């Protein structure tokens, strides 16, 4: 299983904050996971196509080619606006 988390405007758009899914067989990295999620019906394809979205694997910012493994926590969110 992997844990998926969504924050801020993306969370509101998708209507999901947190979910657990079995790691899809075809997914080996962040780009693959994004592609898989974009295959869902509803707002997923468009919402995840925003090029400014950031991704964290196990709570560290990563790039599209970062591997995703069973047990990982993968978070998706818009650019941060703290401070």
């Amino acid at each position, binding site marked *: 299983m992997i844990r998926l988390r969504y924050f801020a405007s993306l969370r509101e758009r998708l209507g999901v904050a947190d979910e657990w899914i079995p790691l899809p067989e075809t997914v080996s990295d962040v780009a693959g996971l994004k592609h898989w999620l974009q295959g869902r019906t509803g707002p997923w394809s468009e919402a995840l196509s925003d090029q400014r979205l950031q991704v964290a694997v196990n709570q560290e910012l990563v790039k599209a080619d970062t591997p995703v493994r069973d047990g990982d926590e993968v978070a998706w969110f818009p650019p*941060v606006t703290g401070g």
Partner: protein
Amino acid sequence: MIRVQQEDFDPGEELDRLRDEAGGQAGAVVSFIGLVRDFNDGERIEEMSLEHYPGMTEKALAAIETQARERWKLNGVIIIHRIGPLRPNDHIVLVAVASSHRRAAFQACEFLIDTLKTGAPFWKKEITAAGTRWVDTNNP
């Protein structure tokens, strides 16, 4: 010292503690306080709400503090960031550093707040008379 909290903080108290914990070695304390503005993008702000990513936030802030301590010789570092509902004029963030000399203190403080703004997972949502909206990008 890193804290993520809903409660307000007292900047004077925090800066005095930073000085005291430096044990007489600090010749300078430099601080930055971020506040909620009353207007943004032409709309009056009635309230702001700050969301974060519990767990990652603390890790990201600790990493930023470590980077600053590697680059400058610092006697103390404070990062306090508030979350939850905030009103215009409220404190959002306090970043403060103590160092032997002012140049390191100014540079480290600027580095800390600039890096926090691009690397720590916080998001601002504004509540205006026209409705709610997520802040899209950070101003410099």
